[in-house]
């Protein structure tokens, strides 16, 4: 067919122009859900570049791996003939449990919070996108609430996933799975409860610190710095060989120790065995720090607005 024989074009492109949206408007409910899900995705780097994914997973993966290692150790001792179930006649070896697992992973989760927390709140202020949120059907409470809940969910997942891995790993590793589950089911509310308290406290603290600057890296360094300084402060004070109860009181400034030992030992019922202080004191201290962080965040954003 030559060009002369080509059929005449009959198609026409119509511009349908601007179409008004007549569909459903879900208002504040949709806005809140979007903010929450967007924060979770941002925190884990989902839908973002490689580097944004790399950092949170770099920190989070070892925590889950630790749960696997604990489960593998338990299963190994079971395979070579040791009884790993404390309630079934006692352990021949002192295997690490959920309490020890919490102690190992706490620092890693704090580092995870130091990377993810600033990511959720700093760029909005740095890029001034925050003004666009507040003219939409959400309040400052919704905004901060969604960001807070997102970090809380991520930290809760980071705290309990290793425990779940460990618990389920042992379930499959030991010979009597049903018996093991019956004997150790109480560990689940313990590590979940501890995870919730840890996530609430760490989320509030991280968001409060991140609210002070719009630069992510500076916020991350401040969070890590606060953790380190609190640890060193306790170490320095301990050099003075103070009375046991005073040392325990001063130990409460150590954020790692609160998360890794003090609170878990309360949840796992071992606090009174090794401490002179009333266990309500650390609980009140953590509650005070959490409330203080929330008030500081709110007041900072109120002033910014």
């Amino acid at each position, binding site marked *: 067919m030559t060009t002369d024989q080509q059929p005449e074009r009959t198609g026409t492109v119509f511009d349908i122009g601007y179409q008004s*949206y007549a569909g459903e408007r879900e208002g*504040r409910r949709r806005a809140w859900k979007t903010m929450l899900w967007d924060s979770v995705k941002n925190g884990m780097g989902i839908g973002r570049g490689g580097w944004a994914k790399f950092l949170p997973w770099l920190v989070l993966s070892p925590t889950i791996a630790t749960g696997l290692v604990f489960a593998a150790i338990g299963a190994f001792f079971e395979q070579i003939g040791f009884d790993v179930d404390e309630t079934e006649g006692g352990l021949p070896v002192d295997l690490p449990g959920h309490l020890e697992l919490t102690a190992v992973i706490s620092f890693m989760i704090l580092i995870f919070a130091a990377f993810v927390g600033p990511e959720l709140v700093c760029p909005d202020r740095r*890029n001034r996108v925050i*003004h666009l949120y507040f003219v939409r059907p959400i309040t400052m409470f919704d905004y901060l609430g969604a960001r807070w809940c997102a970090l809380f969910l991520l930290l809760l997942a980071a705290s309990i996933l290793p425990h779940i891995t460990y618990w389920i790993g042992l379930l499959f590793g030991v010979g009597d799975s049903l018996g093991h589950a019956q004997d150790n089911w109480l560990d689940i509310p313990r590590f979940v409860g501890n995870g919730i308290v840890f996530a609430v406290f760490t989320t509030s603290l991280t968001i409060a610190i991140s609210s002070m600057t719009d630069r992510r890296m500076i916020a991350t360094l401040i969070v890590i710095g606060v953790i380190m300084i609190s640890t060193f402060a306790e170490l320095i004070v301990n050099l003075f060989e103070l009375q046991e109860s005073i040392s325990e009181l001063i130990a409460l400034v150590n954020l790692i120790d609160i998360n890794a030992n003090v609170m878990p030992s309360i949840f796992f019922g071992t606090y009174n065995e090794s401490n002179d202080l009333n266990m309500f004191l650390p609980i009140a201290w953590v509650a005070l720090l959490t409330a203080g962080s929330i008030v500081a965040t709110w007041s900072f954003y109120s002033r910014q607005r």
Partner: protein
Amino acid sequence: MAVSNSSTPLLEARNLTKLYGNVQALDAASFTVGPGITGLLGPNGAGKSTAIRIFLGLTDATSGSALVMGADTRDFEARTRLGYMPEHDCLPPNQSAANFLTHMAEVSGIPPSRSRALAADTLRHVGLFEERYRPIGGYSTGMKQRVKLAQALVHDPVLILLDEPTAGLDPTGRTEMLNLIRRIAREFGISVVLSTHLMQDVERTCDNIVLLDLGRVKESSDVKSLTEETELIYVEVANNRDRFAAELTDRNIEHASEGIAVSIPDVDGAKYDALRDALVASEARLVRMGPRQRALIDLFRSN
């Protein structure tokens, strides 16, 4: 939320007063904004931005009230029908325009199933369809202004508030932006409040203006009546203006010199003849002669 009908103003300020410490940003300002394009005009510090911030619910008035479509500024339903384009940068550089607009549509209450299509449509209307998957950080100033406008439009609002939308644009970009704003009002049926200190932008674009100065409303009217023709005849000459003025004086014609032109009040048939003779006698080359149209800048001068 109050039902927005044809009789309900889109925005209504009643004795709106705002104090920042000892500084009075708004002083009992009362005005209404109806459909079409309304210019919120005034010099720096006139209270334009404060008024916008109050209508957007970003700050509270010290006294008086502000209503959006008949509802309180914090009413969630009213805010789902409001769009805002700030003057300052407000875009995440690492996100694509398509993703950013989709997110903003959802935050405005649009279900996810529809928000992506709305985002693509809006980007098509502002001329960024082909570029929609590129990170915003790589956009030019003009493109960023369009993304800012698009995020204000993406949820199909009833009214959008634009704060200095032509800031930082070159003449071509400025013309395109003003054309786009006109299209939004005329074709999309979305009312616009254009806050600016550029009177030409208002003259070229707006149907109505609210002129603010030192927090008070100095004028609130439609642009047409403010720029209507006057009784003055404006004669612009290329040369010999002073000689021309002298010839007018000799012929007892009252006049005032303005730059390269002369304006003459109350011209009738006889005066036109005398004016023609004065032009011939002065050998001034006529560039333009016609009824004088008031410019909005006169409003600033008179205030």
